[in-house]
């Protein structure tokens, strides 16, 4: 992959000035990648950039404030970096952004659905159109379109929206805003009882590990989250479906107008609860009412942090 070689070269040049560069490398089996912290020259050789690099590395930035950090970003990840800059949670001069034209990443859950047993992966080859997986001796050829993450199938920002270095050619996208929210519209058309029941059932298996929160690049309260606070006492520590569900709404609401829809919350969930739907819904409404998208313009103010005396699209309901 040409991108990768260019990227490595750019990282190699920049590394002496930086404390660390965050990228990806091979994980515990050929089907998984894992975040990779490059401190030494030899670490650069292990860098991997392909459709398995699902993690949004911007998650690490706020806790590394004060260090000179390089970060490799997909288009969606770069939006999180921009949003962090918008909120002044990181300092522009301390962050070096390495962008590249991203053709999308896989959804491991989709791969699991097709392959079934992914416990023994012998090999995995990723190309632009196909993922070739050999699991327990059986070869599976998966069309990329079948295993591509939803967000990537309708991606409008395949290139980093902000970068200091850019590797390879830019990717063009033809997707529209509406394309990305068809699932929300479809889900919303269901009867209220069905939706209510759906969430009860899904939230029931939540183990309250808060991987959704900690994987989220915009969840910057971390150790001071209301989820575990006793005062104010937002949530009981009981394993109650109401509290589990409430937390997801808290997450969605604390992200209103800030969420860059990287999908890390849902990807991180060890029990596959489709919680991204809440955030997508919020983003859809934010766009409709305020014509705003998070993480595009470093100088923009998120819509819920400001107001207009005469709102353009909020019509007072007559009572």
């Amino acid at each position, binding site marked *: 992959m040409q991108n990768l070689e260019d990227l490595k070269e750019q990282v190699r040049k920049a590394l002496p000035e930086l404390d660390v560069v965050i990228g990806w490398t091979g994980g515990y089996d050929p089907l998984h990648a894992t975040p990779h912290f490059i401190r030494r020259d030899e670490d650069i050789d292990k860098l991997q950039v392909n459709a398995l690099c699902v993690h949004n590395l911007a998650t690490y930035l706020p806790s590394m404030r004060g260090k000179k950090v390089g970060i490799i970003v997909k288009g969606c990840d770069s939006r999180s970096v921009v949003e962090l800059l918008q909120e002044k949670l990181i300092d522009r001069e301390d962050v070096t952004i390495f962008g590249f034209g991203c053709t999308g990443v896989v959804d491991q859950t989709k791969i699991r659905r097709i392959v079934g047993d992914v416990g023994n992966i012998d090999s995995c080859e990723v190309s632009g159109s196909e993922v070739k997986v050999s699991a327990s001796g059986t070869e599976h050829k998966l069309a990329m379109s079948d295993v591509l993450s939803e967000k990537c199938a309708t991606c409008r920002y395949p290139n980093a929206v902000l970068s200091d270095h850019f590797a390879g050619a830019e990717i063009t996208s033809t997707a529209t805003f509406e394309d990305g929210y068809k699932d*929300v519209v479809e*889900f*919303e058309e269901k009867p*209220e*009882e*069905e*939706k*209510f*029941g*759906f*969430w*009860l*059932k899904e*939230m*029931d298996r939540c183990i309250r590990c808060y991987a959704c929160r900690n994987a989220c690049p915009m969840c910057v309260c971390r150790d001071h989250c209301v989820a575990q606070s006793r005062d104010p006492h*937002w949530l009981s520590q*009981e*394993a*109650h*479906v*109401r509290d589990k*569900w*409430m937390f997801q*709404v*808290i997450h*969605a*609401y604390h992200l*209103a107008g800030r969420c860059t829809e990287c999908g890390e919350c849902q990807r991180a969930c060890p029990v596959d609860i489709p919680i991204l*739907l*809440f955030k997508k*819904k*919020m983003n859809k*409404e*934010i766009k*409709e*009412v*305020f014509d705003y998208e998070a993480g595009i313009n470093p100088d923009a103010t998120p*819509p*819920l942090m400001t*107001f*207009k*005396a005469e*709102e353009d699209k*909020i019509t*007072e*309901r007559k*009572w």
Partner: protein
Amino acid sequence: MPILEGKELRIVGFLCNWCSYGGADTAGVGRFKQPTDLRVIKVPCSGRIDPLFIVKTLLAGADGVLVSGCHPRDCHYTEGNFYARRRLEMLKRFLPIMGIDAKRFEYTWVSASEGQRWQEVVTKFTEQIHELGAAPKIVGAEAEETLKLMEAAL
């Protein structure tokens, strides 16, 4: 068993201290007849209302939630209700994804002098909630019991 059990639904109102709470008081002093389903929680300003108060109230089993503050441009704190308007509008649009009818929540503006208007708002909102009927209640820590009840109700 209380006389009104089965007839009265549980509606929670968040009212700002300066306008709407005064408006409700005016309605009371004026002896305007009102339905009794609403329980009022007084807050300093509609801007104090975290939309999550409303979600928590609804998930805890309220059948409806009403928020009322000062009219835009009349906020005691100048701009609290401007922020509130954005947040509450987002909430109203968000509720359907949870399977909660957006009509179970309304926000409006009532000034301290508008006793008559308060009476209209409460009456109309209470009627609206009664039309929707009782909201599904989450029973027990695990989803199973609630799901069974919901199924039986269909």
